[in-house]
């Protein structure tokens, strides 16, 4: 504790209401790591407990016990079993689901044995009451020798009491649940003395989970293993007995503290819904219906705010060009920075809608049923039912999606999921898709309801999904492993989504897009504007003279000459030279050097395509800045005299962007998650190769 600030960790089993409580405690005062994900990285926030105590709150991934099954859970074990850790909490809040106390208690009894000062927050008391269950909270508190508070994390009830309790001094429970076997007491004593540990149970974990505890050095591990071997301590030998002993304690506790056992009415409702949602035919139809609705929502509902943002930024840029003095610096602002920011802001509505849909599915408990429905099919393709969530998140952003694969315990299935997730069309592709689809597909409705553009968009998403699933299937045969695969997960009871949580998810994910991807987009669009505005000095200065002499016989108006000068300048700028340089390579796909520039710049982040195209086509234009779409439509291919963006070129580009790996951040995160460059480089080569080949085929078939 320093300067009245304490560190509090929130822990508990998945779906117990940790995120809701965290949001209530911290409000918007949250600090999220660089790459947030629903249950992935630890979230931190601050909370004023009383007038002189501030607390740093850490939201830990949901776990059932200190024996981790996944990478996510390992973090929690590490934090609790390393008292010297920077993240070691002063106090812990264990959120328990009152409707199902039994399997929230296993972790609690372990925390008791570690002598960690803990407050038990009983959540979902309303549901427990509905099912006829009543809990003797006082009795429970005295049996555990720990304070127990009732909260409603959804509505925020009981938060005040919890805060007050946390501000006061809190001591650890004096109970001892796990009685360590006499025969291993000597070896426990050796480890405890050697590492000066506070409890026997901590020493026991050092022995049990030597390899899981990352904070131990190689020498320390070797020491523990040598001691264990000498005393014939075999890890896992006692784990089963420990769990049974703990449940014995828990059952006795619950027999005393629970007044009336539950009857199963509200579960019956859940099973009734399950009968429909996991039905052989209906279940899948509903799932695909839900997906279809999501895409219609993205394409149709986001249109109004997007049009508004689009025209606002065009007007702003135009006004600034007129009002600011002349000079390269002011041009940079009005023509480089402002349109660059506009290019980021415009996609917020779509991203927000997509994340809202995913959050609602997670919150309601439906996502777990999707895992249940898809597990068998996914396994055929070398994946796991749990791969569905990362793959679906991949439609939003591959970065949190790849981090969400940590819930998959099997390494091979996890690796395959990581490898194929970038095929899922992320929100960064949406900007590219939106513009190109709107350009080459007429805005007509089928039966007056289904939007053709929406259907093509869904087709592209489906194509990305197929690429993912077929690649996964191929990898299933390439990668060999002896590790076993598990599913075993809880199917949470259906409930209304907690809307504030949905709101937080939207804010959090949109922020990630704006600040992570947006930074790159803005930086690159500024660099690009510079590249496209400047070139070798003599060539640029010659522009006016060359254009005038070339077109002297055409009797053009002053404005038309200006446009030609601008086009000439762009062609001879550094960006133009770069695009021309790769033209031979991309000509087989139907692309010209302007598209070439966009491909080069969007290698780092694919959404930059739009910013690039916007910059390329708007630079030097004296007329009102038209919207990107209109500008693309009027672009002429000098070879054919027809439009540049024919359906064949548009389709070829769409296919290229569906498959290509153009995201530096994703490659970086894959490197981090797979611990090496091997997989990200393979991914880059494979995806880009597939993109090139497919675009080539599409272009030649269509033209």
């Amino acid at each position: 504790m320093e300067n009245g600030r304490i560190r509090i960790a929130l822990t508990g089993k998945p779906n117990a209401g940790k995120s809701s409580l965290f949001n209530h405690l911290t409000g918007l005062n949250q600090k999220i790591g660089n790459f947030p994900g629903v249950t992935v990285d630890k979230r931190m926030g601050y909370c004023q407990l009383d007038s002189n105590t501030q607390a740093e709150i850490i939201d830990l991934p949901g776990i059932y016990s200190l024996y981790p099954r996944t990478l996510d859970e390992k973090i929690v074990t590490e934090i609790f079993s390393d008292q010297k850790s920077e993240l070691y909490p002063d106090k812990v809040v264990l959120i328990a689901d009152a409707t199902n106390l039994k399997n929230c208690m296993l972790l609690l009894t372990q925390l008791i044995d570690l002598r960690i000062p803990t407050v038990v927050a009983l959540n979902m008391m309303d549901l427990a009451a509905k099912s006829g269950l009543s809990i003797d909270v006082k009795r429970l508190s005295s049996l555990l020798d720990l304070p127990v508070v009732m909260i409603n994390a959804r509505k925020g009830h009981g938060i005040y009491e919890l805060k007050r309790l946390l501000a006061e001094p809190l001591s650890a429970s004096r109970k001892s649940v796990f009685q360590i076997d006499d025969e291993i007491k000597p070896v426990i004593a050796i480890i405890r003395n050697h590492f000066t540990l506070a409890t026997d149970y901590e020493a026991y974990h050092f022995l049990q989970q030597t390899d899981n505890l990352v904070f131990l050095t190689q020498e320390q591990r070797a020491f523990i293993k040598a001691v264990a071997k000498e005393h014939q301590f075999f890890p896992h030998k006692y784990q089963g007995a420990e769990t049974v002993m703990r449940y014995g304690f828990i059952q006795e506790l619950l027999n005393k503290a629970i007044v009336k056992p539950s009857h199963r009415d509200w579960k019956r409702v859940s099973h009734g819904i399950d009968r429909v949602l996991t039905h052989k035919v209906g279940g899948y139809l509903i799932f695909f219906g839900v997906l279809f609705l999501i895409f219609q929502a993205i394409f149709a509902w986001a249109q109004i705010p997007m049009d508004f943002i689009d025209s606002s930024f065009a007007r702003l840029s135009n006004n600034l060009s007129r009002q600011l003095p002349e000079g390269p610096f002011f041009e940079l602002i009005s023509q480089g920075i402002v349109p660059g920011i506009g290019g980021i802001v415009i996609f917020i509505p779509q991203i927000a809608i997509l994340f809202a849909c995913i959050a609602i599915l997670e919150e309601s408990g439906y996502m777990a049923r999707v895992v249940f429905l898809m597990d068998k099919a996914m396994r055929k393709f070398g994946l796991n039912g749990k791969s569905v969530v990362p793959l679906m998140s991949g439609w939003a952003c591959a970065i949190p999606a790849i981090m969400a694969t940590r819930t998959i315990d099997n390494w091979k299935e996890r690796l395959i999921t990581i490898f194929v997730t970038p095929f899922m069309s992320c929100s960064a592709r949406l900007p590219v898709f939106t513009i190109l689809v709107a350009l080459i597909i007429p805005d007509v409705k089928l039966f007056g309801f289904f939007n053709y553009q929406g259907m093509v968009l869904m087709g592209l998403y489906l194509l990305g999904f197929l690429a993912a699933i077929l690649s996964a299937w191929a990898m299933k045969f390439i990668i060999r492993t002896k590790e076993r695969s598990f599913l075993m997960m809880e199917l949470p009871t259906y409930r209304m989504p907690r809307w504030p949580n949905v709101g937080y998810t939207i804010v959090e994910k949109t922020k990630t897009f704006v600040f992570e991807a947006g930074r790159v987009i803005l930086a690159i669009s500024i660099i690009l504007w510079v590249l496209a505005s400047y070139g070798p000095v003599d060539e640029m200065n010659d522009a006016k003279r060359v254009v005038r002499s070339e077109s002297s016989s055409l009797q053009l108006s002053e404005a038309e000459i200006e446009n030609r000068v601008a086009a000439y300048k762009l062609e001879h700028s550094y960006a133009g030279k770069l695009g021309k340089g790769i033209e031979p390579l991309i000509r087989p796909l139907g692309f010209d050097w302007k598209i070439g520039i966009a491909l080069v710049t969007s290698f780092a982040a694919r959404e930059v395509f739009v910013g690039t195209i916007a910059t390329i086509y708007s630079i030097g234009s004296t007329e009102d800045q038209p919207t990107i779409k209109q500008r693309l439509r009027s672009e002429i291919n000098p070879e054919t005299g027809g439009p540049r963006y024919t359906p064949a070129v548009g389709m070829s580009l769409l296919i290229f962007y569906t498959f290509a790996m153009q995201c530096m951040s994703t490659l970086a995160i894959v490197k981090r998650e797979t611990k090496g460059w091997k997989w990200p480089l393979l991914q880059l080569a494979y995806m880009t190769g597939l993109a090139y080949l497919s675009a080539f085929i599409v272009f030649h078939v269509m033209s």
Partner: protein
Amino acid sequence: MAKNVAEMLPGETAIIAGFADEQIGLKLLELGLLPGTAIRFNFTAPFGDPVCVSVSDVDLSLRIDEASTISVIN
């Protein structure tokens, strides 16, 4: 007669007797599937795998391979 969870029918209840696989058994224990506890077989996913069971008011989804390692009596 000893049988396993994978052989149960929807709606059937039984008592957990033990685990045939140590690794899976340890994980199941932590989820509250203790020998002596009642287990109810609820329904299967389309194509018969995975399955949904209830143990002390929790719904769990297990693969058939996992369910078949749990021996039950009823």
